[in-house]
Each structure stands twice: as structure tokens, then as C-alpha cells.
């Protein structure tokens, strides 16, 4: 019987998280276009429905009915699988994120996490690096030189920044002493947020996250000006939409993980009932997402060699130094 309850609970959670994430992804595309529009002193999409609110639906219908082209010389199976890998990896990240405090329903303790893994953070990094395969395989299988260039850049950039990304959250791990994301949040409750102890770690994490999800200033794999479109140049219709959705799902996931690790997750300035604690989580994630759009409207794209130099010669030593200093302080204070 316990197994049945567990299954029902998990399925409900999976469906809820999936629905919410996909809805957020759809409206994030609109939000991004709107915010970028206002930054450029124009309105952005405002024709479809009130304030353009039906734009994502129109876009969805449009991409759905577009012709699905597969290049004649493309590597067919890989070409089809690549977007699936991308979207799967992006959405699977949400499995371990604790959205809220534990609640009691029908004498059962239900946590706002799909899977309360003890190796949550490790899982996050494993799945996040899986997302690269989608991009690399897409560029490789398209039989297109721009696609290949984009994939090459993506591979080099994402792998180098992944190291700094993992190192930037090491400080958090050292402080909280656990890989379980739920426990990491638990330890931050009550103005004990990790950003207060790891301000540089947070900044490094944000920078590496930008590189990890291929966003401006690090949007090398799809540099429009040089690579036409980069790795997804040959993709059309829903396959392209999958990449697009994966990109935004990844963006939300990265912000959610930053919230979990550094901003205290569902902990807020004043306590909400446990069933509503996800509101704090959503608010913090939304602020980070806004920042990600805001910086896209501000910063130009870096040159490829500058990105690599920044990653290896600057970010990597600094993240290592951050770990070193954190360790030193912990030893001195006898934590």
C-alpha cells in the first residue's frame, strides 16, 4: 500500500512540476521578448491578445505546423535524438530541486521535491553536463559547417566552464557538509543564507551558469553574427522548438539551483505556511531570471578566445582561491 501512495504522490508531483515548468518556459519566451523590448525603449510583442499574452500559444501553433526538414546528408538518428537529449536534460534538473517546505497531507509527510536524493547536487551536475550532448550532437549530425563550428565552441566552452561551475559551489558544500539539496536549504533557514558566507561563490556561479546555458555574453555556440545560428542551424519546426524550450528550461533550472544553493531556497524574510513556502522560492528564482534577461539586454558577446581565457586563467584560479579561503576560515573558526 505504501508503494501505491508513493507512486501516486510521485506521479502527481512529476505532472505538476512538468506542467508548471513548461508553462513557465512558454511565458519566459514572452517575458524575455517583452523585457528586452522595454530595455530597447519599445513594447515588444503586444498584438496577440492583451499585452501579447497569447503570443507563446501562437508561437507554439506556428512551430507545430512548420515543415520538419531533415537535411539529406544529416546523421538521421542523431539528428532526431539531439533535441530530445537537450530537453530531457534540462527538465530532469527539476527532479531534485526543493520547491518548498515539507507539508503534512493525509498523515503523510510530503516534501516539495520529486526525488529527495542524498546526492542531489552531484545529480544536478551530472544531468547539466548531459545537456551538452544535445548541443554537440545537434551540431555534429546536421552536416553543416556552421552547426559544427557551433558544436565545437559549445563543447569547448561548456566543458571549461563546467569545472569552474562545480568549483564555485564547493564553498557551499563545505559549509553545509551535504549534497542533499533539501538539507542545504534546511541549513540556510533563518537569515543564514549561503550568499552571506559565499558572496564570491555566488558571483562565480552566476557567471559560470551564464556560460553553461549559452547565454549572452557567452552565447558562442549560437553566435548569430558569425555562425548564422550555430548548432541549431538546420533545425526547424518542433525540433527547433525543443531546443528553444530546453534553453529556457535550463535557464529556469540554473536560477532555481542558484536559489537553492545560495539564496536560501524557500526561506523568506517572514514565514509563510509550509504549503505556501514555494512562493519565496518562486520569487527569488524570478528575480534571478529577470537578472539573466536584463544582462542579456546589456552585455555584448565576448570573443571566443576571450571567453576561454576568462574561463581558464581567471575564473578557475579565483574559484580555487575561493575554496581555499573558505577552508582557511573554516579551520580558523574551528567549524
Amino acid at each position: 500500500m505504501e508503494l501505491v501512495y508513493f507512486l501516486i504522490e510521485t506521479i502527481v508531483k512529476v505532472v505538476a512540476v512538468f506542467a508548471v515548468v513548461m508553462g513557465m518556459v512558454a511565458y519566459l519566451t514572452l517575458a524575455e521578448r517583452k523585457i528586452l523590448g522595454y530595455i530597447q525603449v519599445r513594447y515588444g510583442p503586444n498584438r496577440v491578445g492583451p499585452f501579447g499574452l497569447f503570443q507563446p500559444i501562437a508561437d507554439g501553433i506556428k512551430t507545430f505546423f512548420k515543415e520538419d526538414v531533415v537535411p539529406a546528408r544529416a546523421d538521421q538518428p542523431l539528428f532526431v535524438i539531439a533535441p530530445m537529449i537537450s530537453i530531457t536534460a534540462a527538465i530532469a534538473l527539476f527532479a531534485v530541486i526543493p520547491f518548498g517546505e515539507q507539508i503534512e497531507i493525509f498523515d503523510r509527510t510530503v516534501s516539495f521535491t520529486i526525488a529527495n536524493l542524498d546526492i542531489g547536487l552531484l545529480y544536478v551536475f551530472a544531468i547539466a553536463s548531459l545537456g551538452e550532448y544535445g548541443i554537440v550532437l545537434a551540431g555534429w549530425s546536421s552536416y553543416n559547417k556552421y552547426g559544427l563550428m557551433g558544436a565545437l565552441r559549445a563543447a569547448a566552452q561548456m566543458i571549461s566552464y563546467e569545472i569552474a561551475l562545480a568549483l564555485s559551489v564547493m564553498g557551499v558544500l563545505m559549509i553545509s557538509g551535504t549534497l542533499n539539496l533539501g538539507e542545504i536549504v534546511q541549513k540556510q533557514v533563518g537569515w543564514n543564507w549561503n550568499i552571506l558566507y559565499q558572496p564570491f561563490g555566488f558571483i562565480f556561479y552566476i557567471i559560470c551558469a551564464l556560460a553553461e546555458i549559452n547565454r549572452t555574453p557567452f552565447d558562442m555556440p549560437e553566435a548569430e553574427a558569425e555562425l548564422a545560428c550555430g548548432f541549431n542551424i538546420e533545425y526547424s519546426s518542433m525540433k527547433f522548438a525543443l531546443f528553444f524550450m530546453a534553453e529556457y528550461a535550463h535557464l529556469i533550472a540554473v536560477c532555481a539551483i542558484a536559489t537553492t544553493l545560495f539564496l536560501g531556497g524557500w526561506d523568506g524574510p517572514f514565514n509563510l505556511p509550509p504549503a505556501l513556502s514555494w512562493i519565496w522560492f518562486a520569487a527569488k528564482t524570478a528575480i534571478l531570471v529577470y537578472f539573466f534577461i536584463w544582462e542579456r539586454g546589456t552585455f555584448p558577446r565576448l570573443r571566443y578566445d576571450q571567453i576561454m581565457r576568462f574561463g581558464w586563467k581567471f575564473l578557475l584560479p579565483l574559484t580555487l582561491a575561493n575554496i581555499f579561503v573558505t577552508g582557511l576560515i573554516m579551520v580558523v573558526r574551528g567549524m
Partner: protein
Amino acid sequence: MRAMSKGTWWFIKGIGVLVASVFALAKGLRLTLAMFFSRPVTICYPEHKREVAPRWRGVHYFERNERGDTCCVACGLCVAICPSQCIRLVALEMDSGERYPEIYEINTVRCIYCGMCAEACPVNAIKLGKGYEFVDYRRADLVLDKGRLLANAPKEV
């Protein structure tokens, strides 16, 4: 005083560059945030229209005379001066001795809206109006004949 070692100098310089670049980034972010909260300059076209310049040269129209017909006396000066030769005129002499345009057509596909016809006209019959919403599906529909030129005249205020 002992000179600073090269390493120390390099370190201090690096910190300086770092601080300067963070300030530069923050400056950019501040500007875009200010722009985000400023009013968009977009004029939402079909609902709101932009005022055209006072001497705007839009679609042509005919001035009417006291009989309500065109003022045109079919002198042919506009035909002569038109640089793109887009005006077709067939003149007719009435019993009273007045000349009158039997056919007057402006092919607006060829027209460059230079306004020379309006300047050449001795009786100020042909003029360029303020209208700019002038599209159609076929080329033939873009040829303005006498009736359409009269209809294009701006409404009396």
C-alpha cells in the same frame, strides 16, 4: 625604500582592472535598467498615427472648381515636366472654348512623388496630399484616374 616586486605590482594592477571592469559592467546594467523603466517611444501604428510633415508629399488629388469638377485645364505642363512620365492626359475642348481633361491618369507605380506636377500646374489643380496609406493588390489598381483623384481631395474642415 624597497621597490615593489613585480608580482605584487601585477597583483595590484589586476585588482584595479577587476574593480574597474565591475564598475563598467554595473554602469551598463544601470543604463539598461533606466531604459527598462522609461516609456517606450513606439507609436502603435494602426491605433495611433504619426503626424506627417507640413509639406509632406503623399498621394495626389485634384482641386475642385465652383462646378465641383476638376480645376484642371488640360494644359499639359504636368505631363511635360513629370520626370518619370507617369501622367497620361487626353485633352478635350468644350463648346465654350475651355479645355478639359478627357482622361487624366497618374500611374503611381512609376510616380516618384517629387511634386513637380503640383509646382508646374498654372491653376493649382493637381496637388500632393498627406495620405500615405496607399496599397493595393494589383498594379492596375494603383493607377489614379480622374474620379479617384477627385475623391482623394482632403475633406473640407
